[in-house]
């Protein structure tokens, strides 16, 4: 039985074109981009070209792209880099309750180090209200960091509005766009952001590489001291093969964005419709329309998500869950909790994240499998009501 991968929110399979683009930078062009000789300059050329390709994907200038080790480092660099530079002019940061741990735990770290953090709430579909952000701004506010699209439920935030009001109040704006880049149009000017985090492995690129867009004129302190790489914002010899892979993935994502998005929207809507129609007491988590094209997030009463996930795995289907039982911390999803979903229902949630290779036949198979599995688990569950 061939496997059906529907966990693209976790990671994606590197595109063969990405792997092909990377290989020469392991096998042949191994130079250090800082070396002045021709072998080093081959790497420098690749680095510059890659910077342009990544900039193009988000409507930025190449000198505004800082390569990092991935989305988590990009988020850390944005938050800590601004905090440490601006600590004398203000110590207040605004974020949301449903951010990725890369932002939430960085905020927690800054809080432990004397910063004040405001966590704005979300409504029951996962949307931040820009008015809440505006109301939270004080004279001490130095930065707002709100994710573009949520990694669990796929809700797309009104970043344009928040970015605009941040700038009206003279506050810097960062967005974690790790999940949205390559799936919906992302343009740093349209979004009105000063910083934006990107990860390669979420867009069919390699793991261990990402980027932070930093608007020209925005200063931040490097987290890593060293040889002055990446315009002094991130020291360390550049991961050229990884960066070339990210750039190729960015180029392909830009080319395929329209086709991929419309295909995934139709798969997504079909999966949601069929699941809700064929499984009683099943619900959609997140926003019905302001939603990533590839995100299907469902919950089923009376069953537990890890069991669902494992039974789907036995049928060759890979998905993920917000259940505490499958997380390292044993804490149920903070995102689903923020929507006001009761804990026993959070445990019964399932995230299906589609990719460009998934098909309608696969969607149908997954829904049919879900119908069978939910029924089996409900028959076994002591909390299923007797009819």
């Amino acid at each position, binding site marked *: 039985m061939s496997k059906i991968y529907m966990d693209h929110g976790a990671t994606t399979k590197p595109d063969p074109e990405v792997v092909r683009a990377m290989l020469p930078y392991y096998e042949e062009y191994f130079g250090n981009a800082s070396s002045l000789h021709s072998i080093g300059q081959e790497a420098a050329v690749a680095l510059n070209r890659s910077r342009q390709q990544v900039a193009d994907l988000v409507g930025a200038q190449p000198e505004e792209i800082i390569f990092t080790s991935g989305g988590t480092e990009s988020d850390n660099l944005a938050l800590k880099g601004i905090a440490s530079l601006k600590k004398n002019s203000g110590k207040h940061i605004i974020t949301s309750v449903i951010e990725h741990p890369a932002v939430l735990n960085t905020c927690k770290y800054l809080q432990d180090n004397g910063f004040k953090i405001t966590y704005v709430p979300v409504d029951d579909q996962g949307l931040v209200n820009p008015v809440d952000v505006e109301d939270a701004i004080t004279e001490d506010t130095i930065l707002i960091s709100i994710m573009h699209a949520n990694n669990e439920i796929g809700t797309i935030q009104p970043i344009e509005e928040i970015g605009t009001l941040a700038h009206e109040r003279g506050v810097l704006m960062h967005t974690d766009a790790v999940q949205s880049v390559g799936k919906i149009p992302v343009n740093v000017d349209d979004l009105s952001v000063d910083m934006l985090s990107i990860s390669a492995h979420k867009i069919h690129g390699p793991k261990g590489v990402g980027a932070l867009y930093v608007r020209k004129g925005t200063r931040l302190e490097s987290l890593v001291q060293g040889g002055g790489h990446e315009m002094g914002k991130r020291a360390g010899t550049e991961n050229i093969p990884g960066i070339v892979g990210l750039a190729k993935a960015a180029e392909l994502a830009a080319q395929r964005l329209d086709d991929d998005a419309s295909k995934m929207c139709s798969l997504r809507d079909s999966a949601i419709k069929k699941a809700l129609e064929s499984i009683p007491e099943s619900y959609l988590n997140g926003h019905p329309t302001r939603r990533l094209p590839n995100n299907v997030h469902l919950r089923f009463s*009376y069953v*537990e998500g890890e*069991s669902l996930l*494992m039974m789907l795995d036995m049928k060759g289907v890979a998905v993920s869950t917000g259940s505490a*039982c*499958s997380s390292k911390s044993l804490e149920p999803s903070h995102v689903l909790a923020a929507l006001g979903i009761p*804990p026993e229902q959070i445990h019964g949630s399932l995230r299906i994240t589609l990719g460009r290779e998934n098909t309608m036949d696969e969607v149908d198979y997954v829904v049919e499998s879900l119908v069978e599995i939910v029924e089996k688990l409900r028959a076994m569950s002591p909390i299923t009501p007797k009819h």
Partner: protein
Amino acid sequence: MYSKKVMEHFSNPRNVGEIEDADGVGEVGNPVCGDMMTIYIKVDDGKLTDVKFKTFGCGAAIATSSMITELAKGKTIEEALEISRDDVADSLDGLPPIKMHCSNLAADGLHAAIEDYQNKNKSK
């Protein structure tokens, strides 16, 4: 992360269901925490003649429930009370460390069912 034995019990759980005229019923865990199980026992002449379960929970919760029914069936009350959480985990060739506390409730469920049986019989 799970042993073959856990996966085997998870995919083909033994003795799922309720016993209509059970002599003892034990309910442990809480759906809010993600694991809850009910164990039903039938007792005849001091022996557990039937043991069944219903469980809401993860793979480990279902596998341990299934395993306890196998371990307990045919045992005397005294023997069944000796079955520990560790015995259940060992019979399944171990559980991931993180699951040892939260999902390994089956022994507690069995003991609760026996206690229920003993309380009912005391009052008779």
